[in-house]
């Protein structure tokens, strides 16, 4: 891995390589360049939980011609790149990727949920289909409980590798009013969920960043599943189509009666 990056930097195949380095015991993102090429020996992959893709978009915005190398430490990194290519936020010709040795994600490991959470809210390890065990009223009250915990830190959005809007709807004063805490339930999270449909790659960073442990992955998995069912679009698998260009034969959304 280190040798490859060193070679790329020397050959000029990449101008900058975004990877990880251990600093004071913390694995953290690091820019490797030709100027500091001796640092490449410190390049690590490890249990890295940062969105290097999002960092790359910031670099690319400043330097559209710069050749950027990115370490793929988790399988969702590549998917995030695809999404960013699809939405024209990164130019695939500008990006070189290097797969780290441990390709599989370790964020998949669910954390243990306390019995209280299981009872009152939504356990973090839940899959959308598990939710279907509850009736609509139950699901509704569980979600409202989860949303009521929101501190409106915007961490889920800020950390999200595929959130790139210059102007975010979550700061639109007609949609999410400033000042209110918690944000008017549930609009903040549902607006975000709508935007995640066909964009979320289930990397789990949002849930990790959430100080209130709102099970955001479950929410976004659900909307992505709908997109997949209706449009047969699998988010992040291909760099060259957006869900808007996929037209379904005929979209039938079954109406579901509200349980009394």
């Amino acid at each position, binding site marked *: 891995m280190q040798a490859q990056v060193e070679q790329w930097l020397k050959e000029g195949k990449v101008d900058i390589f975004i990877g990880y380095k251990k600093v004071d015991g913390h694995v953290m993102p690091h820019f490797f360049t030709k100027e500091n090429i001796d640092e490449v020996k410190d390049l690590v992959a490890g249990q890295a939980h940062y969105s290097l893709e999002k960092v790359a978009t910031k670099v690319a915005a400043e330097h559209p011609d710069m050749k950027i190398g990115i370490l793929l430490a988790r399988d969702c990194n590549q998917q995030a790149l695809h999404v960013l290519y699809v939405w024209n936020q990164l130019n695939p010709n500008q990006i070189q990727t290097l797969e780290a040795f441990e390709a599989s994600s370790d964020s998949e490991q669910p954390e243990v949920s306390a019995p209280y959470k299981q009872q009152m809210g939504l356990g973090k390890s839940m899959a959308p289909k598990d939710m279907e065990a509850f009736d609509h009223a139950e699901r509704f009250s569980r979600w409202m409980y989860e949303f009521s915990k929101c501190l409106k830190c915007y961490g889920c959005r800020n950390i999200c590798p595929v959130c790139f809007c210059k102007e975010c*709807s979550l700061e639109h004063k*007609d*949609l999410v009013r400033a000042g209110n805490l918690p944000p*008017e339930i549930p*609009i903040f999270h*549902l*607006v975000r969920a*709508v935007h995640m449909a066909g964009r979320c790659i289930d990397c789990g960073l949002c849930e990790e960043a959430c100080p209130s442990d709102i099970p955001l992955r479950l929410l976004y998995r659900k909307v992505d599943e709908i997109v997949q069912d209706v449009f047969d679009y699998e988010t992040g698998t291909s760099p060259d189509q957006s869900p808007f260009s996929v037209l379904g034969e005929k979209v039938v959304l079954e109406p579901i009666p509200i349980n009394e």
Partner: protein
Amino acid sequence: MQTEEFTPKIIAFMCNWCAYGAADLAGVSRMQYPPNIRPVRVMCSATVSPHHILRAFQSGADGVLVGG
């Protein structure tokens, strides 16, 4: 506790070229329906975004109809 009959408040987004015209025609034909619907005319149902629907629910609507 007294229970009142539930009359949902419904916001209807209606496409100018079809559903809105159809609602007009329902009027011309004097068809009768309950008065708890509030029509919002739009130029095409395509312009109705999830935001509008969420905003409607957020503002207290019990149902949202998109006609187009």
